[in-house]
């Protein structure tokens, strides 16, 4: 069966990245997770349009696409804030006080884990374990891992990030 190239939702170049991923995997259903990764990496999150597009392109029912996108923690259906802060809550970080770090950030920023501040500046997330156990407690600020964190350090660092970006 000849695979027809799906029509891209818009001329936005980022769709071509997603399409390239699907083409490489022959537009087969098993390309779904890989393509969701590609879309999220390009757009920052997965919106309805993206999910519908993938369903058509990969011949997977929209319900299944939605099922997969919501099953995995890594995929986000909502746009993230300008900055992200991920607190690792793995066991090693936890016994060294990661819960106190999370508590301090939640109190300081007025948001809970999984939420974004109302000015869309900061998203606070938690991770299961990022494997940086030997330098715990670890926090990831905008994708950069920092080890041996304390609640005071974390709050100060976030203050800096929100005030002048670093």
């Amino acid at each position, binding site marked *: 069966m000849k695979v027809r190239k799906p029509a891209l939702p818009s001329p936005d170049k980022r769709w071509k990245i997603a399409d390239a991923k699907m083409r490489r995997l022959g537009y087969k259903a098993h390309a779904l997770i*890989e393509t969701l990764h590609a879309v999220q990496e390009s757009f920052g999150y997965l919106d309805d349009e993206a999910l519908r597009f993938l369903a058509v392109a990969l011949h997977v029912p929209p319900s299944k696409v939605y099922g997969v996108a919501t099953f*995995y923690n890594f995929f986000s259906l909502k746009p993230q804030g300008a900055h992200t802060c991920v607190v690792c*809550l793995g*066991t090693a970080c936890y*016994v060294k006080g990661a819960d106190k770090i999370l508590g301090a950030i939640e109190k300081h920023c007025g948001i809970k884990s999984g939420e974004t501040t109302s000015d869309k500046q900061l998203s606070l997330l938690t991770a*299961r*374990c990022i*494997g940086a156990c030997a330098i715990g407690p*670890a926090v990831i600020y905008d994708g*950069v891992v920092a080890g041996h964190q304390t609640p005071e350090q974390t709050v100060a660092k976030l203050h800096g990030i929100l005030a002048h970006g670093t």
Partner: protein
Amino acid sequence: MVLEELLAIAEKETAARKPTCIRCCMAAGCMSSRAAEIKETIQRVATEKDLISKVEVRRVGCMGSCGQGPMVSVEPGGLLYQHVTPENAPSIVDALIGGTAQAELGDPKHPFFARQTLVVCANSGRIDPERIEDYIEAEGYTTLHHVLLEMQPAQVVEAVLKSGLRGRGGAGYPTGLKWGTVAKSPGTHKFVICNGDEGDPGAFMDRSVLESDPYRVLEGMAIAGYAVGASQAFIYVRAEYPLAVSRLQTAIRQAKQHGLLGIGIFESTFNFDVELRIGAGAFVCGEETALMASIEGKRGQPHPRPPFPAESGLWGYPTLINNVETFANIAPILKNGPEWYADLGTEKSKGTKVFSLTGKIRNTGLIEVPIGITIREIVEELGGGAPDGAKVKAVQTGGPSGGCIPAAHFDTPVDYESLVKLGSIMGSGGMVVMDDQTNMVDVARFYMQFCMEESCGKCIPCRAGTVQMYNLLTKIVERRGTLQDLEQLEELCDLVKHTSLCGLGQTAPNPVLSTLRYFRNEYLDLLQSE
């Protein structure tokens, strides 16, 4: 690629070596403390001081003592610097020409290093994980050559069986038996899968192996493919490990370029291709049937076994699925012979095991020790005990599927059977040390929350049971629990353990059961007195 070309690469590498080698650890732990900047600084200073003809500055993988990072080592001389900063890095170069190094010196003779036996981690912290030439120089791929040209697949399976290697993912199933089953399964289409979905919180062995020596894993997978008759493989790695993913991508690309993956490897009739699949943050995908569902692009939900993947796995084809560390053991076993491997370890558990030592302990990091070493040796000698004069209370092994081993049992040898007898498991290799400040009921609740949130929801005992157990544990932690709550908790533990579909649910009660077994008084202390 033929053997002569392989040897020529190794020779060329050796010839290009300079008298002094400064190795900079660039695994994820050290990278988070400016390791990249440190390497650049050392490289720049060595060039400025006109030493670059004599000094090689090499990017390497994990040196083990991640807690003391960033690490830099200098050969010859066997110097080990720790807590290096970009500011004091130039003095490491100065020390080569008579100056004094400002960076803190570590002790390579410390039991943390001296008591280790390196098989899986032999190249870790020594070779550049992004240059296949480095691996080839360390005699990489000679084993694959030997296997492809001089051994029959059945002989390979036999050798792995004889070595006594058991699955390093945690369950400890004899690897040779698994290979034999897949090899015997009918059909010409088979798959090999490497499980790098290291989900246990507090464990990072696979991350470290993939970041430090990805070629070893690929070589092991190729040997496995030849042994069982598979030509297509997948390696499934967590998205939380971006560095491991990128190094694997590099390794796969280089191996393909060198003809060490692909069609007709070493001009034999053996074809082998490896594709990388990135996980998406679901703990349950570490379970093999869930992992295969995820590779197929579906929700990572497990299905009942049998049929086992060895008979009906990925897309229904016979599939061999092993852990990263298991594959990393394969090349050394076939190179040195199964007898050599079987000499390491204990009667029933052969070889070495990589552990990540973390929590309330002085020397945190990655260790590889012969199986059968006691927990006391690991915690007190290698780990140096708890910091700040605190007392070690227990060691947690096996993550959310394991249990806590109290200090009274620290003389137990670490092997698959002994740990099960103590109510824990060997698991994938996470060892989290807890001191007297740690509340064990809270730890049990921590793991239960983990399992509750990670339950895939397919079977009721796990989906609903973990929620109920979590609520009961919360009630107890908050001092609202009664003796009836404790009884109900124990009843639920038994129910969930025996009726859940997959490993996640079946082992979810373990942290509760083991803390109840050894630290029941901590539960009782929290109960409401009536």
